[in-house]
């Protein structure tokens, strides 16, 4: 493992929400870039779950604690409040039961950090309106019949779900595809129109 490295911008935004020295579980951690960053730069006890066996192998071979598993089925195996943060980065739209996954996250952890591609972005709306076909963009780039993103939602939808389940939104922001912060973060309506990704820090009420 090398020392501190620059990480992807969207991961840096997530890392910015994590307090140093925390216990962290990164769900859908891929090769563990964020885990490595949190371990080295923030002195966290960070672990990961990843569904893709090859990614898991790469992560472990890189010295990172990762287990192969599925967010839909593995989170239930952790005890209550085992972590300070559970992170679900760009994965919510691909799980079988997003609502249950969120519930489990807030059961096993004090905080949940969730990012997802915003289906309410203007370019998607426009494509659907003008072409009448499922939109294709940089972020939504797989045909409807083969996309793993089976549960797309908008930033507004996500606020509504948090409201319904009584989750407290401690912080949120909208970002573009690269993960750069976008300026309309205090207006959910504008964020829902212009933000390509939503990023939320939640805790249980």
């Amino acid at each position, binding site marked *: *493992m090398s020392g501190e490295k620059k990480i992807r911008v969207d991961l840096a935004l997530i890392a910015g929400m994590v307090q140093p020295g925390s216990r962290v579980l990164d769900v859908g951690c891929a090769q563990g870039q964020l885990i490595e960053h949190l371990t080295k730069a923030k002195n966290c*006890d960070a*672990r990961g779950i990843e569904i893709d*066996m090859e990614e*898991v*192998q790469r992560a*472990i*071979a*890189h*010295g*990172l*604690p*990762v*287990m*192969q*598993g599925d967010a839909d089925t*593995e989170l239930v*195996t*952790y*005890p209550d409040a*085992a972590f300070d943060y559970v992170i679900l980065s760009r994965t919510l739209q691909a799980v079988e039961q997003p609502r249950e996954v969120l519930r489990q996250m807030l059961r096993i952890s004090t905080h949940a950090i969730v990012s997802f591609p915003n289906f309410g972005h203007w370019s998607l709306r426009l494509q659907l309106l003008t072409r009448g076909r499922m939109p294709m963009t940089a972020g939504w780039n797989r045909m409807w019949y083969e996309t793993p993103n089976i549960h797309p939602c908008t930033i507004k939808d996500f606020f509504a779900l948090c409201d319904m389940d009584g989750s407290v939104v401690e912080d949120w922001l909208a970002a573009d595809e690269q993960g750069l912060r976008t300026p309309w973060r205090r207006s959910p309506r504008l964020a829902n129109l212009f933000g390509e990704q939503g990023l939320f820090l939640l805790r249980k009420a």
Partner: protein
Amino acid sequence: MLDNASQASAPSRIRFVAHPCSGGDCTQGSASAYPVVRMDQTPAGTDFPHQSVTFPEGLALDCGRVLPSVTVAYRTYGALNADKSNAILICHALTGDQYVAEPNPETGRPGWWERVVGPGRAVDTEKYFVICANVLGGCMGSTGPRSAHGERPGALWGTDFPVITIHDMVRVQKRLVEHLGISRLFAVIGGSMGGMQVLSWAVQFPEMVFAAVPIAAACYHSAQNIAFHEIGRQAIFADPCFRNGNYWAEGVRPERGLAVARMTAHITYVSEEALTRKFGRKLQNAEGLAAFGEQFAVESYLQYQGSSFVQRFDANSYLTITRATDLFDLAGDHGGALADAFRAAKSRFLLVSFSSDWLFPTAQSRAMARALNHAAANVSFVEVQSDKGHDAFLLDEPDFHATLRGFLTGCAEHAGLT
């Protein structure tokens, strides 16, 4: 120890005949029709001077009996660092031995895990101090059924050797580790029954294990596992040369029974896919049909596995150690709740399974990973894609080796090992 695939090509001249003990004479080597390959002139488990240490204070066993004196045969590789923090204990499988990274001097066979342990290997002996001990009950120098009877002077234990458990084996290893002046092992690593020992270490002596790596293992022996072992034991019992376990006294060995036990077990170590790939329905000789004998290539392969095994292993040890694995049930020791068993565990875990292993299938490792999660332990878990079955952990599996190496490197950073 499981034999590796490259030896499959040798077997064509080895055959069993139907009645090796005909006429009641089964003295070694005298029945010319008995495995044509001559058994080693030295019976397994003789007085070969294996490196060992004896603990005369004895050992109280799980079964309630006491071994008055315990000898542990072991080997070490690499150098222990100044603060004694770089020690790795390797636990061997059912029929393995302490010669993990060098040829076994008694059998001449290469070290059973030379692919994994050695200079520059995943378990790098230039970096770590590696210890491997022959298990309690074994026949390569450690106390076992071939040792002097603890209660009857002049006799050997034989089948009177107490029932031992995986936990007992580990308690003996702990004595050895302490004897070597080590208070905490950097890692304990083992496959199959070796993996069971790793789990026992992590649960019995959590403070002494920084990293635990059970490979192709399970936290209990399933009914199917026990069933296969029982076939092997019955084959040994049924051999007229077994003589109630007193075969040494009469100068014979239950080679036929032990070979059949090994043949049965060997099938469980390989996958159907691997057997098909290596042998398929290939015929051994094309000279017409034979009712018996080696019609198919896979038959002579198995017979080779059986006959080469009896040269190096003792039947009573086989009985003792198979029973120890059958008795292993980590959850059972904790009221059926596996997570409770792991509650005290402090180690960083790496669990590895192999996709075609049907003896200790991935589901078993996953169940352990979940139980460890439940106990909030630090666990890595991966299933390595391989068509080689349970044996894969001993064979050339670069993905597995890279995973193990990376895990140890990561742990070394956390442990402050440089």
